[in-house]
């Protein structure tokens, strides 16, 4: 099959699924609204270099701390940078960090959970103990500690956020596997001579995916907020990259002088991004959980 054909078949499958979401009541609409918000933000970030009116890191493109006007719709900050351009471009870091951290969480948390609970015994106990210890810390505190250790940068931020959320993947997967591995279709697979990896990947893993998807979406939302928090206290990316987190930090200092627009717009963007992921999660978790289906 050629690449174009594959793309077409994916689209052909996806579109009816999306439209069928609308028929599933409020949770379907929630998921759709979330998908719309999220894709709007992603598209905005991707095409930002072509639509931004000014260079987001060039200082002095306008007067200092100019309030929103027709020339600078979101005003300018204390360095005379155009806020609209910064808002348009600033999502890229957030999206990179959240995607990367979710990926790392997924790649570590899911196999660990699968393996640990399928094998059981002492290995499972040891894993659970370590994971629970991480889980006991407040998320932001442990992220700050690790980010401070690793230093700034996109990858380091993603890693420190990942450590916070690996436990939620591990625990969800583990509890699911514990119940699935007692089901008779797993026993039937054993009775027909399947090896352990066949059982784990063909019989157990596919049945855990719905729960993982739900955890991943909420994890995205949390990662966005944690990333914003890390940047806010100065553990984020360097200042020569436009980032909503930095604008928050600057905006807070400027707020006392009545410059409300520097903090408001990046704040709204972060809320929107987190809201998009949360809506998707809320919608999906109700749609994928057969017990909640009406």
């Amino acid at each position: 099959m050629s690449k174009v054909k594959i793309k077409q078949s994916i689209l052909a499958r996806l579109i009816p699924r999306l439209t069928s979401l609308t028929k599933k009541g409020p949770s379907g609409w929630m998921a759709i609204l979330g998908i719309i918000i999220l894709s709007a933000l992603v598209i905005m970030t991707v095409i930002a270099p072509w639509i931004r009116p000014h260079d987001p890191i060039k200082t002095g493109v306008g007067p200092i701390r100019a309030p929103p006007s027709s020339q600078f719709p979101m005003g300018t900050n204390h360095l005379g940078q155009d806020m609209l351009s910064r808002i348009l471009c600033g999502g890229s870091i957030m999206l990179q960090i959240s995607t990367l951290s979710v990926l790392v969480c997924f790649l570590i948390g899911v196999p660990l959970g699968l393996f640990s609970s399928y094998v059981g015994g002492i290995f499972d106990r040891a894993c659970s103990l370590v994971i629970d210890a991480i889980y006991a810390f407040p998320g932001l505190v442990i992220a700050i500690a690790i980010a401070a250790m690793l230093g700034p940068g996109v990858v380091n931020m993603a890693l420190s956020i990942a450590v916070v959320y690996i436990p939620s993947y591990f625990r969800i997967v583990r509890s699911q596997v514990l119940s699935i591995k007692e089901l008779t279709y797993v026993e039937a697979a054993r009775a027909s001579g399947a090896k352990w990896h066949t059982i784990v990947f063909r019989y157990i893993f596919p049945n855990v995916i719905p729960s993982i998807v739900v955890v991943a979406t909420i994890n995205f939302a949390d990662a966005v907020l944690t990333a914003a928090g890390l940047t806010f206290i100065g553990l984020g990316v360097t200042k020569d990259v436009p980032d909503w987190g930095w604008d928050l930090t600057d905006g807070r200092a400027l707020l006392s002088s009545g410059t409300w627009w520097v903090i408001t717009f990046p704040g709204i963007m972060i809320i929107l991004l987190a809201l998009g992921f949360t809506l998707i999660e809320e919608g999906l978790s109700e749609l994928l959980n057969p017990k909640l289906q009406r």
Partner: protein
Amino acid sequence: MSEIVKVEHLKKYFPVQKSFLEQLFARKMSYVKAVDDITFSVKRGEIFTLAGESGCGKTTTGRLIIRLLEPTVGEIYFNGADITKLKGEKLRLLRRKMQIIFQDPYASLNPRMKIVDAVGHPLEIHDLAKGKEKKEIVLEVLEKVGLTPPEQFTNLHPHQLSGGQRQRVALARSIIFNPEFIVADEPVSMIDVSLRTALIDLMLNLRKDLGLTYLFITHDLAVAKYISDRIAIMYLGKIVEMSNKESLFLNPMHPYTQALLSAIPIPNPERKRKRIELTGEVPSAINIPQGCRFHSRCPYKRDECSKKEPRITEVEKEHFVACHFIKS
């Protein structure tokens, strides 16, 4: 007739889960004695039924024989060879010869697998067939279990089928290797009553066509009467009476068997029969009563019963009973 499966002094004790503190202070581990020293054999081509109340160990016995559980003590022979300690590749080869059907058709099929994969995946596991070849075998087997036309079923998911159809799919999966021996663990108890006979008849036909031997596990004596050649009645992990069907139903000797048989409803309001009602609950399999394990509920019990455990003896030809007061 030769013996296909023989079980000798089979025991399965499950350790009782305890908290850490209890483990420190308890002197002895306690066990659920699910199967407690049973011996029987299944002859080639027959349908041997294990019957008894829930919790009597019949399902555990089935799983022990199929090697899904490791026995605590005892030996299992298949075609004369000891398979109790079989491991690795040899065990995998054995899996092709003995299969199992489970009670709950809603839990025995992977919800994420299409029927063609659910039935045919064992072939892939054993590198016997793939792709088109696999599909052809699956079509053939689906037809054998009465899912016709088979092409209509291959691409469905389990949730699109009814309970009876799912159980047929499970049956198809179990016969895909052309096994010699199948453990049927209450295969019809969760099926709608109107479909039970059809499924049982299907199993009987398959036995004829494929030369199968069944170990049939059930709590329903009416079903046992319909399908079996020989029956063993289990109580709290032990066989209390074992005989061919005619002799057991005409001349039940053990008080427990008599009570069970008297509880089968007769579909005729004119006929009345005296029911033997047992008092009390089945004792816990952790604290099995001393002596005869049935004495706490037995209407005929005497002093001897609570002291000495009766051994299972051949009272008549091919009719075994474990009771102090029944002698040949």
